[in-house]
Every structure is written in C-alpha cells, then in structure tokens.
C-alpha cells in the first residue's frame, strides 16, 4: 500500500514524527442488524452502507513543522485528526509515532503516547467540562501523567502553563462558563500544553472564535511552537491562516489527499486542479488576478464514491484514465506531491 516515492522522500527528510500509511475509515450508516435486512428479488439480503470518510491517505508529519490540512467541510480532515489521536479506530492502514505503530494499541499502552500527543478542539464552549473549575481541568492531566509529583509541583506546572497562555493563574477557581470564547480556547491550549507534549493536533482551533481573537490565539500557538519546540497538525479551512501559519499544506478532497506541498510552493504554484480552484477562491485586493475558477456540480456523496480519481466529475481536465484509475501521489519538481493523472502526464 505504501507508495515507493514517498518512502524515498521521507528518507531524505530530517525526522518523521507521525507517519500515516494507507489510512481508510468508513462509518457504517445502515443501522442495526434488523435495519440491514432488505427484501430483494424474492430473497432476504443483508445490505450495509458506509460513509467513506478517509480513502487511502498517506501523510508524514515532520518534527518541528506545522502541517496544515485544508479542504471543504466533509472532506475528512477532522476524521484524519481524530484518527491520529486514537479517538477513532481506522478501518485500514497504520499510524506510527516515531516509528512505533500506535493505531492498534489499547488505552493503557497508549498512555505514554498521550503525554507526547495532545489535541486542541474546535469548540471552546464544549471542550471544557462545565462542572469542573479551570484548575481542576488543568491539574487532571498533569497528575495523571506525573503520578509521583507533589501537589505543589502540580500546582506550579499549572500556574506555568496558565501564565504562558495569558490566563491569570489566580482565576483557577472559576468555572469555564465564566470565561469568554477566546479565554476558553487559551485554557484548552493550556490543557494540551500541561503535559509537555511534542506533537499537537489542532482541529480548527480558531474557527469558532471572533476574528479579532483568532489572530491572538494563532500567535499564541506560534509562540508555543517556538518556545516548546512543538509540531502541529493543524486542521483548518481558512487559507489565510494556512499562509501565515503552515510549513506545509495538505489539500484534501472527499477523503483523499490531492496535493501536499510547502506552503510557499502551494500558494505560488498550485498543481492539482482542485487546489487551483481553491486558491482562486481566496478573496484578494488585486485587480490583475486570474479569473475565479468555477467548478461544475457539487461534491459527490461519500456514500457512493466516484470511481477513479474522486475529483474527476468536476475536473475540467478529466479524461478516461481519471475515471478508471485512482491517482497516486507523485513528487513534483517543486518539492511537493500531487495526486493527479493530468500532472503526471504533463497535461496540466
């Protein structure tokens, strides 16, 4: 399942922290056993339907980078994030952390990795337990992962992280509902930082915030990256944020990876037709920009995936091969990777 070209490339890279290989995830939507039984052609048959949320994603996250995953809603980017964190078990494929496979471990075996990998959630109003004070929320992970620490050490650690995200440590006795959205997101970040992780998955951490607060939180994340030497997997749909924040960008469409490239390369010269359409949709204050590429039709349903390239139905360059064969990621001259027959054949 592994693409040989990717393996070659990762060997040249400094250090791969998280490696995602051939990841598939399908969700059963056909209800319980009795709902699955259908009467067809005089026979009772069992029929199951699946939502194909991720379809063979290969992704390497390198130490120290901020890998941004972009795509429209429903393209599976959050599912990738949640699968990496072990919140969802993949249907097929593997996830490795520093070369150790982690997708098939149980809760106990995962515990040491939990300390290294943390997650920041999208909705700051739901991600803090409303019945716990901030101090309790922050102390819990510290205690869990450092069982031999004294109460004073735990408190010091909590004060340190609260201070570093700009929350006054004396507010610890308050409950989450007493804070604003931006403050809550800072607290969520503090919770993730409290166990000194090296890898953080951020699932649209700023999309639920006010625009004025978004920049603050983004800067906070960047400061933390610099000070604590963090690696991010950053899920977002805001391309302006990507340009500002990302080291590399992965573009997803309908559960597949279309293009993966360093941010500058991707913004300067998008290769995949979908990425090109996505980039042309960014509002800009320029007059002489190329016209907005309008895609035809709608995103197909992930229940019945199109054959071949998932994008072929809407791609202006699609030909017979695109309808038959699923494109593999190929390395481009600019150092990016793109999954497109057209690019491979030099048509685009």
């Amino acid at each position, binding site marked *: 399942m592994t693409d040989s070209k990717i393996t070659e490339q990762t060997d040249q890279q400094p250090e791969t922290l998280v490696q995602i290989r051939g990841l598939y995830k399908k969700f059963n939507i056909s209800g*319980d056993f009795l709902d699955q039984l259908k009467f067809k052609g005089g026979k009772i048959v069992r029929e199951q339907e699946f939502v194909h949320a991720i379809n063979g994603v290969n992704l390497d996250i390198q130490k120290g980078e901020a890998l941004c995953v972009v795509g429209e809603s429903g393209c599976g980017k959050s599912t990738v994030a*949640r699968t990496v*964190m*072990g*919140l969802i078990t993949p249907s097929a494929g593997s996830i490795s952390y520093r070369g150790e496979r982690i997708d098939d471990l149980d*809760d106990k075996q*995962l*515990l040491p990795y*939990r*300390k290294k*990998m*943390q*997650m920041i*959630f*999208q*909705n700051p109003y*739901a*991600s*803090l*337990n*409303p*019945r*716990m*004070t901030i101090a309790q929320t922050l102390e*819990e*992970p510290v205690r*869990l*992962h450092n069982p031999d620490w004294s109460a004073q050490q735990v408190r010091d650690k909590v004060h340190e992280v609260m201070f570093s995200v700009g929350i*006054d440590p*004396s*507010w*610890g*006795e*308050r409950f989450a509902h007493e804070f604003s959205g931006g403050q809550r997101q800072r607290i*969520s970040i503090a*919770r993730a930082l409290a*166990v000194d992780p090296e890898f953080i998955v951020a699932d649209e951490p700023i999309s639920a915030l006010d625009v004025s607060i978004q920049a603050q939180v983004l800067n906070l994340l960047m400061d933390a990256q610099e000070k604590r030497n963090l690696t991010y997997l950053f899920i977002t749909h805001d391309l302006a944020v990507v340009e500002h924040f990302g080291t590399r960008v992965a573009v997803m469409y309908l559960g597949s990876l279309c293009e993966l490239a360093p941010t500058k390369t991707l913004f300067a010269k998008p290769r995949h037709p979908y990425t090109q359409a996505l980039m042309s949709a960014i509002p800009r204050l320029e007059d002489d920009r190329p016209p907005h590429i309008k895609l035809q039709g709608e995103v197909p349903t992930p229940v019945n995936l199109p054959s071949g390239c998932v994008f072929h139905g809407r791609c202006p360059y699609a030909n017979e091969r695109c309808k038959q064969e699923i494109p593999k990621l190929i390395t481009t001259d600019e150092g990016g990777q793109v999954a497109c027959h057209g690019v491979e054949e030099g048509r685009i």
Partner: protein
Amino acid sequence: MTTENQTSANKMPVPEKAPSAWERFKETHVWHSFIKDRVAQISLTIFMGYVIMALFAPAIAPFDPYDPTQIDIMNSELPPSWDEEMGDEQFWLGTDAQGRDLWSTILYGTRISLTIGICAVLLQATIGIIIGLIAGYRGGRVDNILMRFADVQLSFSTMMVAIVVLAVFQASFGTELYQDLARIMLVLVIGIAEWPQYARTIRASVLAEKKKEYVDAARVMGLGQMRIMFRHILPNTLSPILVISTVQVANAIISEASLSFLGLGMPVSQPSLGSLISSGFEYIFSGAWWITVIPGIVLVVLVLVMNLLGDWLRDVLNPKLYKG
C-alpha cells in the same frame, strides 16, 4: 481586568478564594426561579415540615406507639379531640383500633414511609446510574444487552414483582421473620423493581454528553473509562437525576403504602402510613373514619408536594422549557 489584578495581588500569599458554594447558588437560575415560584416555596416548606416531623418523631410524639406499656386497649377508637362527645384531650387526632395515639403513630409512620422511600430510591439510583452510564458510554452490544434487561424489568409491573417476591418470602420464611425484615425487604423490592427508570434517563443524557468535546479531551488525555464516566459525564447528567429522584421518592412511598395496604408491607406493630390506612379500613364503616382518613391525607399531601417539587425542578432544569 484591573480589579482582577488587584485582588490577585492582595491575596498573593494565599490561594485565590472562590465565591462560596452558597454564594454561587444564589446566582443560579434555580434560586431565582425558586424565589419567584409560590408553589415551589409552599411545597418545599411543607416537605421540610414532613422531614422535620420524621427526623424528630420521638421528640415530638406524645406517646411511643412501639411501646406496648403506653398503649391501653380501653382507649381504642377514640375520635379526634375536637369531637366534644367522645374526644379525649390526650389524643389530638384520636386513637386507632389498638388504642395507640394516632398523631404519634402518624409521626412514626411518616418516618418509616420516608425512610423506605428514600432508601429505595438510593438503591434504584445506584443500580440505574451505573447501568445507564455503562450502557450509554460503551454503546453497541453492551448497550443493547443492558437496555433489553431494562425493558424486561419494565414489562413486569413494580407491584406484581413486589407482591410475588414479598408473598413468597412471607410464605417460605414465616411471618415473624418477615416482620423483622419488612423494612429491608421493601427497600430491596422497590429499589430493584424500578431501576430501569434511572438507567434509561441516565443513558439518554450520557448519549448526549459523550458527543461533547470535553469527553474527547478527557480521552485524549488518557483518562480511564471509569474516570471519564463518573468524574466527567456523571456530574453533567445530575439535573435529570435530581428531577426523577423527587418523583421516584413519591412513587416509592406510594408503592410502599400500596404494599402495606395489601398486607405485604410494614407489620401492624410498626405501621407505616400505608399500613395505618389499611388497619383503619376495617373500621371505616363503624364510624372510625379518622384512622384511615387522617393518615390518608398525610400521605396524599406528602406525595403531592414531592410531585410539585419535581415538576418545578424539571421546568427549571430543562432549558428547552424555560427558554422556549
């Protein structure tokens, strides 16, 4: 912002003192709606009256109905003291067929009824919360199996289970042992028969809660399932538990009274409100109405105020009702 900094600066050596639980409670929606709602205030006052009566029954009651030396059969079936012909100043609410002071017996009976009701509900809640939490959190097959158990349990009516169990126990172990264990047996039977009410309610709220991101955050932290269930999810499902608890205590008291009325509950020597009503029932046509009617009124008022409190709590704690 500045005041925050000042307070924290002033209190730097000691940890920040949060507002006390009572101060926080006074800010809540529950308190605000309580001080506006006359029915809730009256219900709570009456209920507290009952609780005090039950707690201090030995101190309040002029006689001890359990002490045979204080009972004189010659005083039997005396009407309440406001009956000028027959009434006796000594017995405010009259006496029952055995010459016990009705007021004292009602006080002790309320005590028994409330104890059995609350203990049975504690048992129901414990079983129901554990099963509901596990079913809701684990989902899938575990959920299916546990909820089918609940359905089976619900398809037997509480009264049927209780009557069968208690009658079989009474028949096989003898009335004497039964009378000693009546209290525990009633708690067990009512407690076990009604756990699905809790399990279903908890399961429903757990299903809603476990989709929230704080549960994912707890999982990502690496917390164990037990800790997530009991420390994170359970506290967030407390409001429905509180609501059904009030109604369930009332139901348990009624069940106990019904069983006692049928002769399967508390023995005549230690009457609960139900067995008191039952014992007076034989004399109601001979004119001694008070033995049945007065404990009956006491029971009805107790159940009524509990249901009113439960309704009020449900309205307050269900945001859809008060915001809609």
